[in-house]
């Protein structure tokens, strides 16, 4: 994994998550901004997926358990997509909160992915 990319995704997901939670609590319905930020995180996770697939070929090997790593990555990919879907169907402010909570979860999961990538499995 590329460390700066990983932390970039973590930071963006955390900021976008906080923003959506706050917007939702302020009563905003899902908007281009909130759903767009989730779409951006989804896009970055796809970049992460491509990087993770290519990295070992360039000598950037995974130290931890690859199954666990990809389990996290797949779950992380599902969450923003599901949240956006929810936000499109359920047009209430709580959907905005849900998108935010999902993005915060993604942010934590990306940190965990970095730990798995860089730590030798027990």
């Amino acid at each position: 994994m590329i460390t700066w990319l990983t932390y970039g995704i973590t930071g963006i997901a955390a900021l976008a998550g906080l923003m959506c939670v706050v917007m939702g609590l302020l009563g905003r319905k899902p908007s281009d901004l909130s759903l767009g930020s989730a779409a951006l995180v989804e896009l970055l996770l796809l970049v992460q997926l491509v990087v993770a697939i290519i990295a070992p070929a360039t000598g950037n090997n995974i130290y931890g358990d690859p199954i666990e790593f990809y389990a996290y990555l797949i779950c992380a990919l599902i969450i923003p997509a599901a949240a956006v879907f929810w936000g499109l169907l359920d047009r209430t402010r709580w959907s905005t909160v849900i998108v935010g909570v999902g993005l915060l979860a993604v942010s934590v999961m990306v940190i965990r992915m970095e730990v798995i990538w860089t730590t030798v499995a027990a």
Partner: protein
Amino acid sequence: MPACETPVISFRPLPECETKGHRIGFDMNSTDPAAQNPTASSSSTRDAAPRISGVGRVLVAVYGILALAATGRSVTQIIGKFDQAPLAYTLSALAAVVYILATVALIVPGATWRKIAWITIGFEMVGVIVIGLLSIFDSALFPHDTVWSYFGRGYGFVPLVLPALGLFWLAKQKGKRA
């Protein structure tokens, strides 16, 4: 009296409310004033329910994420290293199934699913407390983490907080219905 002051997840037919999308779930064409104007008075018939409904929806969403996380972890453990700790990993799988059931039970209307929600969420509450205590006092029993080890520490204690919120919410719905 407001015509529609009913719990959001209503398990009985409510003719006056049925068409207004106050049940939990997806309402494609919601024109709810509460959604547009959060400061609307709760005495209005239309926005009394959605407010609770909203928090309920967040609960369902967090349950969904946790169900996904527990399933992911369980699948990983069973594929990769089941023989290392069959007890802990079987428990992980059981926990994952229970989280999925609880998520579904919170969404689907009907008395049966409501009962299942009580059972599954109650099971989670007992599970996280028992396994949490066991993992602290007899850690040899659980050398490998489960979703409930140390009261769900690996998941930011969400597994401890969530069933408590879930039970509280179910109890509140019941009170409103009575």
